[in-house]
């Protein structure tokens, strides 16, 4: 009998053994996949919310301008010169009363006819002032706005700074929740996978004993359990992606501007969940198979 011909790893055999682990413990496996999916879905929805808030903030920042509304007797050219001299100002554009009205008509689109009832153009001329990005979310923006506001010929100013600050605060809060959810998801998945794999290890105690007695390597004994953890993560991740896409499609019907970061979802749901699945298996093996 010739048995010298060993080869290091029978991958298909080990994968098969991993699948057998799952089929023997089907209900526990799918129950724990369900819990993992719910956790990942929660995380996905928070990431969806965060990325969309960040995107909205960036879009507002890109268009960020200070509006300086002028008095009827203001000397626009002189004001443009003065504003250009203020530190932090990058570009100043004059918008006349007529141009402001045309803009408003464009913005109102099919409702523009409402403007026809006006006897005169109520809109003031204004300066649109683009500023240096470093000023946008800093205290210095208030000082800059104040410098423009006190110039002779400027009636009032508006920057949307408050709106940006409010969005910034919301984003910070949501990111805080993201981190919280991430931590919960991390521990929940690790825990549930390790418990499921532990149950499989206990159920396979005799098989493991025989494997060890006949001379199976540690890798050979442990690999099927890593396969189980891997598949746990893969299933949980894929189902969470499908559910998130379904929710996204439904939400987009109501909010067409909604953005879906595909790459991030693939990374988070697959890479993260597979990593946690394998991590859960590692934990179970470390606890039981010493």
């Amino acid at each position: 009998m010739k048995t010298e011909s060993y080869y290091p790893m029978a991958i298909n055999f080990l994968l098969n053994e991993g699948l057998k682990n799952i089929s023997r413990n089907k209900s526990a496996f799918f129950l724990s996949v369900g819990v993992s999916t719910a956790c990942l879905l929660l995380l996905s929805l928070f990431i969806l919310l965060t990325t969309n808030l960040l995107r909205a903030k960036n879009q507002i920042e890109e268009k960020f301008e200070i509006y300086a509304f002028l008095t009827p007797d203001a000397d626009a050219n002189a004001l443009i010169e003065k504003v250009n001299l203020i530190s932090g100002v990058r570009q100043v554009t004059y918008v006349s009363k007529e141009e402001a009205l045309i803009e408003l008509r464009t913005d109102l689109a099919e409702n523009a006819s409402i403007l026809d009832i006006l006897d005169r153009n109520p809109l003031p001329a204004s300066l649109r002032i683009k500023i240096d990005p470093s000023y946008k979310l800093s205290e210095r923006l208030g000082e800059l706005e104040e410098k423009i506001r006190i110039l002779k010929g400027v009636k009032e100013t508006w920057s949307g700074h408050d709106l940006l600050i409010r969005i910034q605060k919301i984003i910070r809060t949501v990111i805080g929740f993201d981190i919280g959810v991430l931590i919960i998801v991390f521990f929940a998945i690790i825990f549930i996978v390790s418990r499921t794999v532990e149950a499989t290890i206990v159920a396979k105690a005799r098989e493991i004993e025989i494997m060890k007695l006949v001379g199976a390597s540690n890798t050979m004994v442990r690999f099927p359990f890593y396969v189980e953890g891997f598949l746990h993560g893969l299933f949980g991740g894929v189902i969470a992606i499908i559910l998130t896409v379904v929710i996204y499609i439904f939400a987009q019907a109501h909010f067409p501007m909604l953005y879906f970061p595909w790459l991030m979802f693939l990374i988070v749901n697959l890479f993260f969940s597979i990593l946690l699945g394998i991590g859960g298996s590692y934990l179970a093996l470390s606890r039981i198979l010493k």
Partner: protein
Amino acid sequence: MIVFEHVSKIFKNNWTALYDINLNVNKGEFVFLVGPTGAGKSTLLKLIYCGDSASSGKLNVMSYPLHDSLSDAQITQLRRKIGIVFQDFKLLLDRTVYENIEFTLRVIGIRPLLIPEIVTSALNKVGLYNRKDFYPYQLSGGEQQKIAIARAIAKNPEILLADEPTGNIDYKGSTEILRILKDINFNGTTVLMATHDHIIAETSNKRIVRLENGKLLSDGD
């Protein structure tokens, strides 16, 4: 091949399972370990396959010096050269006879192409090839033990350890098991068989090592 020098095994509860054992088993020998329950036979076999470690003394198996610092990889290599047969067979009940042996060969990394030939040969040696598709629970105790032996010899071990292989089997079955073990030994495998049945040992014309209360009482025919 197997050398015990002043080997003792004392468990944590201070129970002395083996005391100052000196034993030398040569390659190709057939040795009976005879003694009543609790004599230390199973513990002695366990030390050989690294199922446990000696508390004191020197133990050398196939030039592996066995001590606590033996690595997992070394234990794995040693166990691949040793076949073990237990009183309770230790067969996987949810796998057929063929799959039980195939499983052993797969986990030690035998190439799949070679496996059918090896399994067939092992089952023919114990005369149970016609049972290859049966599940263990469909077989008698004697047949299950033969399958356990087939599994042990499938990997072509240098040493075969049999711990009470006839313990759960009737006289006829025991005789057959013994014949198979002798055949295996005839082909060059060193066999150590632990049994409480001194009659089986005495009628076999092989070396008998008697143990009692963890002490080696006698060593000879």
